[in-house]
């Protein structure tokens, strides 16, 4: 079993390294086969490990990574229920996306680099999931950051793409700073970075420390999961190839923050203040991103903002103390969002590489299959009753509602409002893409089969995902909560409250649909006002950060360089050197090459010395 767990992690690494080192020397389809084989093998290994994951979990220590003084960090893996469910999702979704990518990247000359990075990404993500200490998790954490960087900028010839990758890396690294500080602090407090040890002994700490550490972890999570205020990188990250958006920026990496908070939940949950902050960050991001999604014109940017918004829901779930709700939504979201992105990739292909939804329309005629798949995804996203998205979102809102106090009711209200907006933008997208006639000019491109059928299992998983954690109200047994041993996440609300919650959820869904139906059934490009411009630009946060952070930073750098380095330090030194040279220049005149002049100096000098001795003798 230990070997299976190690393989689960190492297979993608192996595939990635193999492709990175030798990929270009292998005959054409082989790199793709290696990459797919590695991930699928990893998925099978994960399935194999699954029976061992319950209870205490399965653990392997591969070797000691760093050990110095009191500090020790192992390459140690832990497959407990939380990690198992996450690893299964990551490898499963990644396998499907790899298959899809094999079709998507068919004609790209640089596909070995793509698959190498994609495999390395899966490895890094699995490291986050399986790490039994925070330092190893940090390795994965930065690893996914790098792979994301490399893949966003995959088509590097366009400077914007590479710049978007860089932005993603640096913005998430701001979050990582907080994570690092939290990590250092935790080690200083406990003398270990083992996740279980820290969680087990968290109650020993005083509340203020816990709050600060939890907030630091939240900072790290915000960076990776694109939550306020570190969210600006995600929409730009859509410059990457579509499978990348599906895998990294929808299903897995952006949920790493949620996973971190769930992992450290025993610690985080000890601080009510931090929990409130998490919930607030989550719900505000959800609302912010949903409003932005309303005005976007590029299909992938709509989905990007919706991802941000849905991850906000997951944060909200953690913040109201329901790990199983967060994980539930994480899973269903991974399924339907990966589906949506990949279907969007198909749509873009079908529309002749056109991103702009204003130039789509009538896509239903171009491919019925994709239409149904995309709509299935949208229904999940919008929270159509009985789909996976509906149940998971409902559980989150119910958990917030069940807390009962004013703060949480407020959060519930905002969450409900966001749900309505979600439904609105989902159907706006549906109508703009599928209704009416095609507004673009390009002829359709062929869709390879590999780009279609991996979507089908995802669609099933998305639509039926509710079964994972079907509440008692619908006759289920809340399997996921049981698996995660979090039975108190199962809510026991009164019948009236249940009806109220479900009713309002269905209500906002229908309301959103209705508005979208009235507004977008007939295409009319009307989003040109200042408000849509404001929303389109993501509330102008980019401009704000540029003004507040980047410009001053450049100014400081410029001052250090031109002012201090060149002006002061080098200026002083060069000035000193110049003074010496000037002195030398003037002394040079003495050496005029005339012997007589020298001898004269000699004679005068002699005179002075003799005079000096004579004077001394006289005195």
């Amino acid at each position, binding site marked *: 079993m230990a070997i299976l767990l190690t393989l689960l992690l190492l297979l993608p690494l192996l595939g990635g390294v193999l492709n990175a080192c030798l990929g270009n020397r292998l005959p054409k389809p082989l790199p793709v086969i290696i990459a797919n084989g590695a991930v699928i093998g990893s998925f099978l290994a994960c399935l194999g490990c699954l029976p061992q994951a319950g209870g205490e979990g399965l653990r392997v220590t591969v070797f000691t990574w760093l050990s110095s003084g009191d500090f020790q960090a192992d390459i140690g893996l832990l497959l407990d229920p939380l990690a198992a469910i996450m690893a299964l999702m990551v490898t499963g979704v990644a396998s499907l996306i790899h298959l899809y990518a094999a079709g998507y990247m068919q004609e790209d000359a640089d596909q070995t680099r793509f698959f190498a990075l994609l495999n390395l990404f899966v490895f890094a993500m699995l490291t986050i999931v399986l790490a039994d200490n925070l330092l190893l998790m940090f390795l994965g954490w930065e690893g996914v950051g790098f792979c994301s960087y490399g893949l966003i900028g995959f088509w590097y010839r366009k400077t914007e793409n590479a710049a978007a990758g860089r932005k993603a890396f640096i913005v998430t690294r701001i979050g990582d700073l907080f994570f690092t500080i939290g990590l250092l602090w935790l080690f200083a407090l406990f003398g270990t970075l083992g996740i279980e040890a820290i969680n087990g002994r968290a109650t020993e700490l005083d509340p203020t420390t816990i709050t600060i550490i939890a907030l630091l972890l939240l900072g790290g999570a915000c960076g990776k999961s694109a939550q306020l205020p570190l969210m600006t990188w995600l929409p730009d990250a859509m410059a990457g190839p579509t499978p990348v958006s599906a895998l990294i920026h929808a299903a897995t990496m952006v949920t790493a923050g949620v996973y971190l908070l769930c992992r450290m939940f025993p610690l985080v949950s000890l601080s009510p203040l931090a929990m409130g902050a998490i919930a607030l960050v989550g719900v505000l991001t959800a609302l912010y991103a949903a409003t932005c999604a309303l005005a976007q014109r590029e299909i992938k940017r709509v989905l990007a903002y919706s991802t941000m918004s849905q991850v906000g829901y997951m944060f909200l779930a953690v913040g109201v103390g329901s790990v199983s709700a967060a994980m539930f939504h994480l899973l269903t979201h991974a399924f339907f969002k990966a589906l949506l992105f990949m279907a969007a990739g198909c749509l873009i292909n079908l529309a002749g590489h056109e991103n702009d939804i204003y130039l789509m329309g009538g896509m239903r005629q171009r491919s019925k299959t994709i239409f149904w798949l995309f709509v299935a995804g949208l229904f999940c996203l919008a929270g159509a009753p009985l789909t996976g998205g509906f149940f998971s979102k409902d559980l989150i809102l119910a958990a917030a509602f069940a807390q009962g106090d004013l703060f949480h009711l407020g959060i519930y209200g905002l969450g409900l409002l966001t749900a309505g907006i979600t439904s609105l933008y989902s159907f706006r997208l549906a109508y703009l893409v599928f209704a009416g006639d095609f507004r673009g000019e390009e002829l359709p491109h062929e869709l390879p089969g590999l780009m279609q059928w991996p979507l089908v299992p995802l669609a099933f998983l998305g639509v039926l995902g509710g079964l994972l954690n079907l509440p008692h109200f619908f006759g289920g047994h809340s399997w996921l909560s049981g698996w995660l041993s979090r039975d108190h996440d199962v809510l026991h609300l009164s019948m009236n409250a249940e009806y109220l919650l479900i009713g309002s959820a269905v209500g906002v869904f229908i309301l959103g649909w209705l508005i979208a139906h009235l507004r977008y059934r007939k295409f009319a490009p009307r989003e040109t006002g200042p408000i849509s411009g404001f929303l389109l630009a993501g509330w102008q946060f980019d401009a704000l950060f540029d003004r507040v952070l980047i410009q001053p930073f450049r100014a400081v750098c410029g001052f250090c360089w031109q002012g201090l380095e060149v002006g002061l330090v080098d200026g002083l030194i060069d000035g000193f050197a110049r003074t010496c040279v000037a002195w030398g220049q003037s*002394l*040079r*005149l*003495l*050496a*005029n*090459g*005339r*012997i*007589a002049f020298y*001898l*004269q100096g000699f*004679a005068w000098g002699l005179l002075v010395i003799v005079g000096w001795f004579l004077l001394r003798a006289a005195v």
Partner: protein
Amino acid sequence: MIVPLEHLLILSTILFLLGLTCVLVRRNLIMILIGVEIMLNAVGLVLVGASAFWQQIDGQVMVLFLMAMTSAEVSISLAMVVYLQRRKNSIDIRSFDEMRG
């Protein structure tokens, strides 16, 4: 000693200053060499005088050495004067100031 030492010293000082002035003022290389010789001989005079005054032989020995050395020096310097004359067609020292900074 018939001649008082003071007179001897005054004479050699005058000789030395004459030689020095000659070296400093003249521009002709040969004249400068003559100045050097005069200075050397002034020194030799002092040595002889002092030797006689203190009744010690060292000074006279020194003068013998001095004369031998001077003859060697003069032959070398004159050879160099000839060489320099060939190079620049002049023995004016102003034309030999390449060592200036």
